[in-house]
């Protein structure tokens, strides 16, 4: 097992009090897995990524275990963690500008990434070679004028270009685990297709493990072999991507899949799951989805369901007891 998450809970301290955004999570990742993390806005997807790279803000705290390479990421020293972040677990942040230094040129930062990997792999760190590698990598991401882009600062690029520069960094670093938080939201579908194919290649050739955070079920379907559906910081359903999407079991997963807009549904209002996600300040008792679920019954409102083994997957819903 490459990464094991056990009984993970995550908290944030805020002006309105301390609240728990991830509750008792367990998850296993094998080398070479591609797993998609989907779920509504604010369900805790980015928070989970930040815990795995230990990049939570000062107001955040985590309990439980995150075992990588036999060691607990939550407990090792900061120095060791810095090393891991550069070469073993790299995260592409949801806001790509957060992954870049605003006062350094794009080229400088990409060459730095190439250097880190080359040092790790004991390869030559010849400046010209690294520059060439960075440039080629930008071109593989369909960026025109790579040379000009390397000389610019992050704010002199378009939204989708910044996003690709950060993806480029990941391609140059080739980490063991890549956590990509909504990495293609600013890209149009043609370039998105290119990026997805590049990630697949890295996964095949380098056995790179990918945690792909997305709200796009279509994309999760295309890329990943495993799927984890989060709701209010809990895993509601997890298992093989194909089988979940073709036949979702949890009412929340069905709702999520039912709201994918497609070409046949253009007239009238778009479908959305009724109600809003609950506030972390006042989560419903019992099942956290119970106030929006169309199958809700007595027990759902009293007791929170366990993550049950159902057919080929895990589901947190009393309908399957």
């Amino acid at each position, binding site marked *: 097992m490459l990464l094991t998450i056990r009984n993970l809970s995550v908290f944030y301290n805020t002006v309105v009090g301390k609240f728990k955004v991830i509750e008792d999570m367990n998850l296993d990742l094998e080398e070479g897995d591609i797993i998609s993390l989907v779920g509504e806005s604010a369900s805790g997807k980015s928070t989970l990524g930040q815990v795995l790279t230990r990049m939570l803000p000062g107001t955040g705290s985590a309990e439980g275990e995150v075992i990588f390479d036999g060691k607990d990421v939550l407990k090792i020293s900061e120095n060791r963690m810095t090393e891991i972040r550069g070469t073993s677990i790299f995260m592409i942040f949801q806001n790509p500008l957060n992954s870049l230094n605003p006062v350094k040129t794009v080229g400088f930062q990409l060459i730095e990434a190439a250097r880190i990997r080359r040092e790790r792999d004991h390869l030559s760190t010849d400046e010209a070679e690294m520059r060439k590698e960075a440039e080629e990598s930008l071109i593989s991401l369909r960026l025109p004028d790579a040379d000009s882009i390397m000389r610019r600062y992050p704010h002199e690029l378009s939204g989708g270009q910044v996003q690709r520069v950060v993806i480029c960094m990941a391609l140059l670093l080739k980490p063991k685990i890549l956590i990509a938080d909504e990495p293609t939201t600013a890209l149009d*579908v043609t370039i998105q297709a290119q990026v997805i194919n590049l990630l697949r290649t890295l996964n095949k050739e380098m056995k790179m493990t990918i945690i792909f955070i997305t709200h796009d079920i279509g994309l999760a379907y295309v890329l990943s072999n495993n799927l984890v559906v989060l709701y209010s910081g809990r895993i509601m359903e997890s298992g093989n991507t194909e089988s979940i999407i073709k036949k979702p079991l949890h009412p929340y997963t069905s709702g999520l899949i039912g709201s994918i807009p497609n070409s046949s549904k253009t007239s009238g209002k778009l479908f959305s799951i009724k109600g809003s996600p609950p506030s972390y300040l006042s989560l419903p008792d019992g099942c956290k989805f119970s106030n929006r679920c169309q199958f809700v019954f007595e027990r759902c409102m009293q007791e929170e369901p366990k993550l049950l083994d159902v057919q080929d997957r895990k589901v947190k819903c009393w309908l399957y007891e």
Partner: protein
Amino acid sequence: MSEIYRFEDVRKYYLSQKRGLLEIAMRTKPIYVKALDNVSFTLTSNQVLAVVGESGSGKTTMGKIMVTLEKPTSGKVFFRGEEVNKKNTADIRENIDMVFQNPSTSLNPRMKIKHIISESLKNFDEEKVQDIMQQVGLPYNELKDKQPRELSGGQVQRVAISKAIIKKPELIVLDEPTSALDESIQAQILNLLVDLQKQFKLTYVFITHNIYVAKYIADFIVVLYAGKIIEYGKNEEVLEKPLHPYTQLLITSIPTTNSKELKPPVGDVPSLINRPEGCSFHPRCPFAMERCKTQEPPLRNHGNYLVACWLYE
């Protein structure tokens, strides 16, 4: 329905690199990124125009020009028939708002959420803020006193939308406003935007790369490629029967849950510094003819459409 905004031959060239004294003294030629080139169009009030197109094709630049955050390098822009200049920018900013593509970097990081949203109102109006947050699915009590960095990506995006719609300006430029939202919340937001638009007769310029979103919300669609308009027409027509090969490609590359195959188009993306000769799309176009390599197709009427492609002469 009347004209609310017009672009006439607008160009926006960015310097590809800041020029130091030395470069200027040595008279090296500046290198330009041609973000928008000869763009002309008219926007009618009370309608929704979707702007789609490849990353880097000039969509955000177009929006920034509309809200007067960028000045065209050449060409003219008109708001309600009046040429935009220094004197009327204050008035324009009063009536046009923009929801930025990267909201977490455009919101004031030190302000509380409730104050960010009500900033454009004269006074803080708790009831209004509470109401709008509820409509975009944000829990008021949990978030009101937080700062932007304490919110998730999709929450920040909805704060930015709330901030713009609370005032109901005549024209709103929405730059990828739902890109961080899952389908269910996106649907809720789109429904809300459509309701507001109808009820208050607002005009939207809706920048998106999500064709389904464009299809749902827009009356008209404009497709940009490498800084130029290559297709324009009614929503139903353009999306049902796109004329330009790039628009066609855009529609066939959408990932669906029906197939795992993704076929990105081959060929080079165009440089904006040294634009390819002829049609900018010819290196990637499956129908490219000899002529496409040397002569640039003008934007011309074809039925109800405007299209820039030699296939439609």
